């Protein structure tokens, strides 16, 4: 099963020296285990851009989708056997030194994204599709026949074309689990990292020429609230000394 990990960090947290090595260690380990599908840190120095659909039209504004104490700092998409494995994977991530990781199962029907090479002349934007999901139930597998039907979102996916690297709807916050480290031990709690009215309900990773193109794609998406975040350069797994690959 695929799980979407949302990393959130406390802006006042103290980060130790050598954090990058720890991050690389985690990425290398999870890549080696075949757990890690994709993951991108966000540029925290660049404020988020919000695309909000109102009764009078689409408003583009500065700011995150919700004011929370902890701020979204990145994501990982992983493949794990079950929630316990996802918890173990998240529990080993250095984000927990100064933040938390929310684990959300990806809704059924998502194909494993194709591997891609980031293009040097493009920027990656993480598009967080948000809405009020109180009362939203688990998205069940539609069973035979259901998957072939064309959904409204498919037009948008066609339109975004190669500018969309991958993306999916997530299971609702009712199925979320948050992992933190308290006094040195990993603690697991039910629910999302923050109880906000609007919650992240899906994501898309875009590769575009800049913010304007990202906004244009987000406008066409049709959902009420989209948060656009500029991505930073992802940490690559360490290539072992040439002797490990078959």
């Amino acid at each position, binding site marked *: *099963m695929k799980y979407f990990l949302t990393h959130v960090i406390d802006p006042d947290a103290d980060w130790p020296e050598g954090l990058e090595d720890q991050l690389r260690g985690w990425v290398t380990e999870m890549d080696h285990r075949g757990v890690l599908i994709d993951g991108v840190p966000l540029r925290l120095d660049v404020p988020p851009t919000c695309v909000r659909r109102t009764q009078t039209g689409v408003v583009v504004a500065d700011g995150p989708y919700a004011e929370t104490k902890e701020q979204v700092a990145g994501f990982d998409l992983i493949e794990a*056997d*079950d*929630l*316990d494995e996802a*918890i173990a994977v998240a529990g080993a991530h250095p984000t927990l030194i100064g933040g938390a990781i929310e*684990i959300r*199962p990806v809704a059924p029907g998502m194909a494993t994204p194709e591997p891609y090479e980031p293009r040097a002349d493009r920027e990656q934007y993480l598009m967080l599709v948000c809405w009020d999901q109180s009362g939203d*139930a*688990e*998205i069940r597998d539609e069973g035979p026949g259901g998957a072939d039907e064309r959904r409204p979102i498919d037009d948008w996916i066609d339109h975004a074309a190669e500018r969309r690297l991958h993306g999916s709807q997530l*299971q609702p916050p*009712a*199925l*979320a*689990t948050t992992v933190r480290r308290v006094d040195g*031990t990993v*603690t*697991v*709690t*039910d*629910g999302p990292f923050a109880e906000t009215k609007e919650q992240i309900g899906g994501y898309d990773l875009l590769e575009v020429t800049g913010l304007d193109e990202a906004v244009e794609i987000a406008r066409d998406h049709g959902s009420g609230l989209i948060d656009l975040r500029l991505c930073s350069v992802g940490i690559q797994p360490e290539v072992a000394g040439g002797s490990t690959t078959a």
Partner: protein
Amino acid sequence: MSHLADPVAPVFAEEWGRLVAGLIAWCGDWELAEEAAQEAFARAVERWPRGGVPDSPAGWLTTVARNVVRDRLRRRGVETAKLALIGAGPDDGTEAPTGFPDERLRLIFTCAHPALPMPARVALTLRTLCGLSIAEIARAFLVTESTMDKRLVRARAKIRGARIPYRVPPPELLAERIDGVLAVIYLLFNEGYSASSGEELLRVDLSAEAIRLARLLHRMLPEEAEVSGLLALLLLTDARRAARTDGGEIVPLAEQDRSLWGRAEIDEGEALLAPLTGTPGPYEVQARIAVEHDTAATASETDWATIAALYELLPATPVVELNRAVAIAEIHGPEIALRLVDELSGDLDAYHLFHATRADLAARGGDEVAAARSLDRAIALAPTGPERRLLARRRAALADGVDGASR
């Protein structure tokens, strides 16, 4: 289901949890497993009184329940291929062989999974392992049936949707997850124990269910010291139940009629603790404190020095410190204890027993004015009627000028 016809009731108590656990392992669907188990028992109630109890009640129930599962899946349009996947071919009704001594162990651990909210863990445990009806659980926790039903539906959706594994945790997680299971049982016991003081006579006996679960867990994990510790703690606490109230009023420990204490439970609790030799965990320490109380012939013969030393082995939370101060008062007098208690005022100002303890110590030190003030505060904060009335009686005794009113 506590009103089942006679031949079925004892089987229900013994087999419900095992049946549900086996069905979940077999079909992977919690809701369906519960429904099918319920249906199987409903048929037993119908047939056993007339046709007699089958030779293997468990086998009979499993066969009936599996047929119910198959029927429901077929009606939902699940094709034969998928039915075959869960072994839906004809079977002889024997349990599928598994690597576990008892299917219920997997169920216990999954119900207590940390990714489920605590109220859902408790409700799931009572429903799937103990076989309490949703109405009974709702009544036990003073919520409506529909609220309780939603809580269970949501918990099952999370287990399925987030894929919480149905298993006994692997060794590296076992200790931590056992703690989670023990926490559920302990909460259940306390819920039942505090409710047993009068006002809620209609509530099912949660303490008895907690003891039953702790026994079950102990049978399955006899080597785990904290499991023994918890079972001992519950037994040693429950032993005092009959003496703890009198006509709905709380009787404080020192005033209880010790001849009413359950000798068998005390003996069993002590026997559980006897073989434990490692560094004691919190449940074992609390059980050892309970032993000191339970085995003192009179209140004045209580070994307070040992009790104070045991409290030092527990994590020093404000409530633990408060209890330690009570023991210290018995050894070194109320003045020293009062100083310790006063240091806790920041943390425990909203806790009625903090003020009640303060009042007791102040009264013993001769300061009735301070005692009265603390008792007023304690009365205002007390959560239940019986506790409020106990404190009010102490307050009245002070006002009458009776010396040592609170003893």
